[in-house]
């Protein structure tokens, strides 16, 4: 079996499972945020069960609109706080303590190799970077998980993507995953798992692996996953004292399809308006004027992303026609960037530093776009209306390309600076 099949077999108390089978699995961890949580809570109350199945296995994060940007958001946050109190849920992360839910899940040790994690957010697939099977569900389904701790899942087919070669300077995991989505299409991995492997993946740090798995859902995948290695074990052990039981794909594991890629000649990639699979090499869109450049989100708002942006803008000023919005993915990332002087470098160059939140990525607050404006963003979706006006255009790229574009006021290849 491959890693996804092994985790689903373990979670459903079976010796073996195969693609297409439907299993009823026990959930190890369940996560909700301030958009999906209130609806899950309302639905949980409708079911009529008094107590959640396991208060220690639920994580609640306020992230999409923190601090509350309106009285309506404040009401949603209140529903979340009251539920955490009523159900005695210890893993509750308010403004100032958490950040973007997926980053918080990883940093706080709630993601452990070999576990089945469901989250009421589509980017729950991020957790595969640590060898967990993470998948997104909706609020009603989450209410049922709160009540029973169980969920039905179809065992997915798996596409194995082997990556070899060596990245050029300023070409990174984001360029690779954009290029993969461009090749397979927005529904190319629908219902399937994407398993990433090969020397390039093994060389990646945790942050880059999170970027890879995070965007698997943009190809429709149920999850993105990487076999856990010593880097993952060291990271997770530094974050939790809970026992870890990693699972790995067998040598003779079965896959629906193999894809082999070499990154040596890969140039920076850009997903053009208005779908994530409309991917072009940066050379084809260089010179496109931008009004806003955004670095943040569960895809690329980590310390490594902020560092590369700081390296690019250090000692320079961004173009005065651009708003350069930088939103660290978590409170921990924020503090680390503060300590290292990364935030100072970015702010001196003209960046507007926001507090950890999904913010502009989700089009909730802090950096929305007007009619006719263009944004280059390190986030994960460029759909019509995603970041504000439906008449705005969004280009997705790596933090390096975003920072370089902020300097020049137009889409820029970071290798040419």
């Amino acid at each position, binding site marked *: 079996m491959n890693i996804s099949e092994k985790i689903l077999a373990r979670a459903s108390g079976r010796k073996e499972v195969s693609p297409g089978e439907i299993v009823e699995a026990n959930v190890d961890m369940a996560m909700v945020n301030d958009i999906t949580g209130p*609806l899950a809570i309302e639905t949980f109350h409708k079911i009529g069960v008094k107590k959640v199945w396991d208060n220690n296995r639920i994580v609640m994060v306020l992230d999409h609109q923190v601090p509350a940007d309106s009285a309506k958001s404040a009401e949603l946050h209140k529903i979340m706080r009251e539920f955490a109190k009523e159900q005695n849920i210890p893993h509750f992360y308010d403004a100032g303590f958490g950040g973007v839910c997926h980053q918080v899940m990883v940093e706080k040790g709630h993601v452990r190799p070999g576990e089945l994690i469901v989250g009421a957010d589509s980017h729950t697939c991020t957790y595969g970077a640590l060898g967990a099977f993470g998948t997104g569900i909706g609020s009603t389904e989450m209410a049922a998980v709160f009540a029973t701790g169980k969920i039905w899942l179809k065992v997915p087919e798996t596409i194995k993507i082997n990556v070899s070669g060596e990245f050029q300077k300023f070409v990174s995991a984001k360029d690779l995953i954009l290029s993969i989505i461009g090749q397979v299409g927005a529904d190319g991995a629908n219902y399937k798992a994407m398993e990433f492997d090969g020397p390039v993946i093994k060389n990646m740090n945790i942050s880059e692996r999170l970027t890879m798995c995070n965007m698997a859902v943009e190809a429709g995948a149920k999850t993105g996953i990487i076999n856990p290695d010593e880097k993952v074990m060291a990271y997770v052990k530094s974050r939790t004292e809970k026992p870890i039981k990693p699972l790995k794909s067998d040598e003779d594991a079965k896959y629906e399809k193999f894809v082999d890629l070499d990154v040596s000649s890969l140039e920076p990639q850009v997903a053009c308006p208005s779908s994530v699979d409309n991917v072009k090499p940066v050379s084809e869109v260089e010179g496109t004027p931008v009004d806003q450049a955004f670095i943040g989100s569960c895809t690329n708002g980590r310390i490594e992303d902020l560092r590369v942006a700081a390296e690019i803008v250090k000692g320079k000023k961004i173009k005065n026609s651009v708003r350069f919005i930088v939103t660290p993915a978590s409170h921990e990332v924020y503090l680390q960037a503060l300590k290292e002087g990364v935030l100072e470098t970015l702010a001196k160059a003209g960046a507007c530093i926001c507090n950890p939140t999904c913010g502009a990525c989700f*089009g909730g607050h802090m950096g929305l776009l007007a009619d006719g404006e263009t944004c280059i963003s390190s986030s994960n979706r460029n759909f019509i209306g995603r970041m504000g006006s439906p008449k705005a255009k969004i280009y997705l790229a790596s933090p390096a390309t975003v920072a370089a574009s902020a300097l020049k006021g137009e889409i820029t290849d970071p290798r040419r600076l």
Partner: protein
Amino acid sequence: MVEIKGKALVFGDNINTDIIIPSKYLTTLDPDELAKHAMEGLDPKFYEKARKGTIIVAGKNFGCGSSREHAPIALKHAGVRCVVARSFARIFYRNAINIGLPVVECPSILEKTNNGDELLVNLAKGEILNLTKNLRLQASKLPSFILEIISAGGLVEHLKRRLEKDGKL
């Protein structure tokens, strides 16, 4: 619930959840308020049209994007009785079933349907009749446990029945 009749409203491929219900409306939990803004970025008159009882017809990957359940809720409360698409994104598909909005996969639906055609969807048989064009189209049959969830009106009622039966409620 097994047979659903309505007039087709036709859309293309990759209709995402930000289109179905933009994020700026997600601060409300009121389904009727969400319904008023369904699909407004693509068709500002969608709500008016859907009120008459409609079946959405679409291409591949309908509902891709976020996990927001507000998307199927907005459609259902706008008056959408069923969505027939070439294929669905998986989270939307589960969400729709869980809130009791029937979803059916039919590979040939987009080529064989025009706006306003009268459709009759049979969920149990996995069959769609285009009454306007007098055509019979093969659709995917829903597994019986999914049909059970839909006919209970969604996962909440289905789960309540199950928990009551087990004496857990």
